[in-house]
């Protein structure tokens, strides 16, 4: 199996215990799941545990989740809630929920209440890791305090002291992952791109599903030996940049890259795409301080202050990817990226990047045909302008 096939397999079977956790657990390892890239994987790794991205399944429906979680929670969270309540993640020992946005954070209290009402529910322990919403000094220091509390909790949970050496080692490994993923991003920026959006999304997500050191070796193998073996990309494809809500499955990218007018996703600012690898952790300072800095000062999540900085980051990323058009994708009830959109659109126009917004989308794309038609019309306007 090639490295890329391994990435594809992990993406496709990301709920499969035998694939993602069995070996680890049979050696006595602890699995810590997380739903958001704000989770400090380095602390989890330094505690000797396996960090694992948890997502919903667009095909699962939400019938169990809907009993208690209101429909105006974001649909990615409702689907993950469904997965947790139906035992799909029953092998995860601890669910670490960073307070990334309201829907994610409130899921913690909902899970707590579900377990209180029905102790037989098969999901692991839960932990809410709080974050504040700015880069102000006091908020960074608060985040630092919460990281220390999480580290101390993990030491008890895993029965292992988290040393500075272990943290430094974990930081080196995740920095290496980020460094390698930046190479993937560069290959997407090439003309024509060497890697498609669908391929890239699987590569990035696999980094959160495979033990990091093992993943790094696979990614090196991919970069050295496999990139040129990927299907060639059409030189005339229109270069699209994707922005907006977290995208943790292939539906949308698959639609964008399989249209009558060829298009390719050359970058994105979303959580499970290039944003994940944007900012390394400093290896020069005390590791817990470095982690608090990194997770506070990294490229802005939509929930972070301020609009101008966020929009500048997003537009700069689109320009660097040499995008001809931007597609803004908003999941239902995901307010945070949506408040930036009008400013973002204006800035894109200044940079001669045309844009289209798909607002209020379901987690399982409900009208892909309509999206295809709209996107093709959008691509035609880009083509006409060339």
């Amino acid at each position, binding site marked *: 199996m090639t490295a890329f096939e391994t990435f594809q397999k992990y993406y496709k079977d990301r709920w499969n215990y035998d694939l993602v956790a069995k070996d680890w657990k049979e050696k006595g390892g602890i699995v810590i799941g997380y739903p958001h890239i704000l989770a400090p994987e380095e602390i989890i790794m330094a505690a000797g545990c396996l960090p694992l991205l948890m997502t919903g399944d667009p095909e699962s429906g939400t019938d169990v989740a809907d009993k208690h979680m209101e*429909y*105006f929670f974001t649909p990615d969270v409702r689907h993950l809630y469904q997965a947790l309540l139906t035992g799909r993640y029953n092998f995860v020992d601890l669910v670490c929920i960073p307070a990334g946005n309201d829907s994610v954070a409130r899921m913690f209290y909902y899970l707590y209440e579900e377990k209180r009402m029905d102790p037989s529910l098969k999901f692991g322990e839960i932990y809410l890791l709080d974050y504040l919403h700015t880069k102000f000094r006091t908020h960074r220091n608060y985040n630092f305090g919460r990281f220390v509390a999480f580290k101390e*909790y993990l030491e008890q949970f895993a029965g292992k002291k988290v040393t500075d050496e272990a943290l430094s080692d974990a930081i080196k490994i995740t920095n290496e992952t980020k460094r390698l993923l930046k190479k993937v991003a560069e290959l997407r920026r090439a003309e024509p791109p060497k890697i498609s959006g669908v391929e890239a999304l699987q590569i990035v997500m696999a980094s959160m599903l495979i033990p990091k050191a093992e993943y790094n070796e696979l990614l090196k193998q991919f970069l050295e030996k496999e990139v040129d073996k990927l299907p060639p990309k059409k030189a005339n494809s229109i270069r699209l940049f994707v922005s907006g809500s977290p995208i943790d499955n292939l539906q949308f990218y698959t639609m964008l890259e399989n249209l009558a007018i060829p298009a390719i996703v050359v970058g994105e600012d979303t959580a499970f795409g290039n944003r994940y690898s944007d900012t390394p952790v400093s290896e020069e300072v005390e590791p817990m301080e470095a982690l608090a800095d990194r997770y506070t000062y990294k490229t802005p999540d939509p929930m972070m202050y301020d609009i101008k900085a966020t929009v500048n980051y997003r537009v700069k990323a689109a320009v660097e990817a040499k995008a001809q058009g931007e597609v803004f994708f908003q999941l239902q009830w995901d307010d945070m990226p949506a408040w930036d959109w009008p400013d973002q659109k204006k800035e894109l126009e200044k940079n001669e990047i045309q844009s289209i917004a798909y607002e209020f989308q379901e987690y399982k794309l409900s009208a892909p045909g309509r999206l295809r038609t709209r996107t093709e019309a959008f691509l035609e306007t880009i083509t006409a302008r060339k």
Partner: protein
Amino acid sequence: MNQERKATVEEFRGERSLKRLKCSVEATAHAKEEFKVVRARMAEGEPVLFVYIGVPKILLGAMDVLYWDMQQYSALCSAKQMSRYYLDVLNNEGYFRDLCRYCTVPLGYAFDKKPDIAPWGGLPKFAAVIGIHMDDPCMPIWELYAREFGVPMYWIDRAYVDGSGNGDKLADQLWLEYTYGDSYVDPHRLDMMVEEYEGMIRFIETITGKHFSETKLREYMERQNLVSEYQWRATDLSGRTKPCPISWTDALSNVSGIYFPGTEWRVHNAKQYYEEIKDRADKGIGACENEKVRLWWEGHPTWFSLGFYNTWEQSHGTVFLPMYYYAQYLQSNIQRELTHPLRQLARMNARASVMDRIPSVRKHKMLDLAKQWQADGVIWMLVESCKLLYASVLFTREELEKEGVPTLEINADMVDARDWDDTKMKALVTSFIETLMP
């Protein structure tokens, strides 16, 4: 009314509510008067702040700082049938339709910049804005207020109850904070909130030239304790009395008091509110002549049609209980421990994150009160654009139904009348009431 505004006002216009109490009429007049006072003092050169509902206004009052509450103006625009106009302004600016509305009606005004058509002559020119994290959209919305008004912003963040959710630890903590809110909050959250307030005080002092006195704050908080005490006693008495002496619409007129807490006038108004209710209760005077059904409307009212809640008083002997505003939290507003008033105020706000966000807390308290106040049914307005106050509804509904309290869910918005179908909503409520009739 100019042509532009005329064109935007559609057919439906809300109904005015009944006001049975003298103090309710006075409260409405007083709110308008306070707005005039702000304008008059501003004309003399005093700076005015624009603030969010969760900002500790009692502290601003104690500093003698002029301020205007965003939510109050949002409700006012809605009552004056202008919310749809301002929400349309935002949609035309490119903001999606399904985003938060309660906090953004005045933002429509900020973009529109036409005081001549705005309720009460529009908003004054502010010196700064102060926002606070209540839920996700707050931060960008307040950034936009600051930008559109062209003034600096101070931002108060708010922490979640965090840590492990395993077993009894979280449960104990939540109940400690809920039950003993004036003496216990997780230390790191409390310290954080104190820091946020200290920063805010320096910001306000710099902007306004006014100064902060902890002694003065204590005076305001002592007075506000009296207000909360009267409000709680009035609400509890109304709930326990059959027939219910007043309806929700009477209580809502007095809600404006939350915008100016701790003043002597507020004590006067709250005392009068309690005494008028007690007088009616003693005399057996009810909001309905022949009370048959007592309903609890949980959540905000539809500010654009407060008369909606008087609809069934005559026809069905049905009264909406005067819950004030999230009545289940009223008692916890009383802060007995005032040795360090700023720290106590911070504690109160830090604790609010428990109230807002935790299903287990909300559902038990609400069930207790529904029983004590003999509510025959609970109607839930589910506001999908507001996760802050409308989460935990399903857990709570389930608990109420399980305990024999019937519920009805209505999807609507507190300020946005664009999707409101008055006939349909009244039919829904009528059907529900008819299932509850003795």
